């Protein structure tokens, strides 16, 4: 294992300290318990938005804290949901009197810990709503599984819900918009290489030099199936199939096309992927109205990518285009 770290035990602490030093114009950081809030939190009268989860997916979520997106991010240990304490503390820190929305990816650990934190916050008189993100079409539905995972679509929910909160929507409305985005976004990913969790020191799985994992999650867990390496276009087609048929996305739809790097894939490859994805959507008569390309929901140094497609309407376009000022996503200010 080769990493730019000092001690596996201090990875999250030290990274958060570095994040604080780098972005003190945008955020403030609590070190015990660990959470990150926007510099001007709490914003009086505004719904607060808290997200979080295991570390190792950066810039998600700390990189999305700032005006127009998250009010707080709560990073757990690498790939491990945070405990209720920091979630509660972050919830308190961003409560501006209009209630707080928890954006939670659908993993047993995240759901349970956020649930407990919400109960505790409620007991302290803070109104809390939660939206559970489950955009990963690689997982069968919840009759057979813990339910679909929350993956890169989370970024889109956080941006759009953040814009709704910023313009003054109330808690129910912000939760509604977050749920709406979640209901309209579908994602699927592929890994070319595994990642190495610092405390483990070993790859999360092994892949031969000519193998890839289709339907990968974002925690280094194995995917749905292992196949031989294929040209980028064939891989893109494999991911788009289940995505397009699931919602389904159909001719005439306006969409946001999001190609997300898993952390270790060069940008040049992400754009090769984007090119093919755009081509396929065009063939289906689907209009790409907005785009996002880059490393946003990562799995440490994993090579690979995911494709997310979000069906847009005028409301979502307006909220997507609204100004955002975070370390990882910024426009309009």
């Amino acid at each position, binding site marked *: 294992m080769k990493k730019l770290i000092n001690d596996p035990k201090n990875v999250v602490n030290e990274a958060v300290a570095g994040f604080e030093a780098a972005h003190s114009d945008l955020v403030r950081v609590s070190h015990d318990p660990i959470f990150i809030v926007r510099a001007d939190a709490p914003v009086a009268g505004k719904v607060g938005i808290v997200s979080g989860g*295991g570390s190792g997916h950066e810039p998600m979520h700390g990189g999305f804290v700032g005006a127009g997106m998250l009010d707080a991010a709560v990073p*757990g*240990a*690498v*790939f*491990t*949901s*945070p*405990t*209720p*304490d920091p979630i509660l503390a972050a919830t308190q820190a961003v409560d501006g009197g209009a209630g707080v929305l928890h954006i939670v990816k659908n*993993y*047993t*650990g995240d759901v*349970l*810990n956020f*649930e*407990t934190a919400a109960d505790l916050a409620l007991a302290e008189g803070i109104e809390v709503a939660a939206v559970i993100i489950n955009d990963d079409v*690689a*997982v*069968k539905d919840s009759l*057979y*599984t*813990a339910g679909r*995972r929350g993956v890169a679509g989370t970024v889109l929910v956080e941006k759009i819900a953040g814009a709704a909160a910023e313009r003054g929507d109330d808690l129910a409305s912000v939760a509604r918009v977050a749920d709406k985005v979640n209901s309209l976004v579908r994602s699927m990913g592929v890994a070319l290489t595994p990642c190495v*969790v610092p*405390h*483990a020191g*070993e790859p*999360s*799985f092994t892949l031969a030099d000519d193998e890839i994992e289709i339907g990968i*999650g974002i*925690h*280094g*867990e*194995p995917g*749905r199936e292992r196949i031989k390496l294929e040209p980028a276009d064939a891989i893109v087609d494999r991911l788009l199939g289940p995505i397009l048929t699931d919602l389904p996305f159909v001719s005439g739809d306006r969409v946001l096309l999001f190609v997300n790097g898993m952390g270790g894939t060069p940008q040049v490859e992400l754009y090769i992927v984007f090119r093919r994805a755009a081509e396929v959507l065009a063939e289906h008569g689907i209009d790409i109205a907005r785009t996002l390309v880059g490393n946003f929901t990562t799995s440490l140094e994993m090579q690979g990518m995911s494709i997310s497609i979000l069906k847009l309407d005028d409301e979502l376009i307006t909220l997507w285009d609204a100004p955002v000022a975070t370390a990882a996503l910024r426009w309009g200010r």
Partner: protein
Amino acid sequence: MSPNVTSPNGTSLNGTWAEAWIRECAGVIAEHRAELNTLDRAIGDGDHGENMDRGFQAVVLKLDALPSGSTPGEVLKLVATTLISTVGGASGPLFGTAFLKAAIAVSGADTLHAAATVALLTAARDGIVLRGKAQVGDKTMIDAWTPAVDAAIDSQHAGESVVTLLERAADAAATGALATEPLVAHKGRASYLGERAIGHRDPGAESTTLLLRAAAETAARA
């Protein structure tokens, strides 16, 4: 010689046992940390040993500050709150709730006879089901807990000692953990894998076995 953990006739367990049990848990979890990570790497995200070890190390520090003569319920309550606030992941809230419900089930009691011990185990298991909604066969820690509870009930009905009761519970948990290997998972991260989970043991069922084995062994060390 270490202080007594059972009543002179071996029919009940006291607060000293509860503390010894939990310290033993911390020891065996630390010892099996890497092994639990490896189990979790195969069908999860490789952190189960890490999570449990972080939690029980924190518990030990807290135990050091607990007044001597605490009841089993007081010990278990401390374990619960510490696990909830230090473990994270799925296992933190699940084991945390288990210990919390167990603490409530035996609160007030200075010593635990067989019936109370069964109540403790049942409440723990029910707490996990309440939070995690898993059934036996879903390839989770419940596959160890439920057989353990059933064995404890049988043992109580047979009028066996609490030591034997815990031994039977631990044995049943071990058998249950082993029985997760051929299963497809329906809860937790392993459920994402479908058929590919077959052949791997559930890490939470394994750690459950370690905790219950520690209970039996500390009880037997009269």
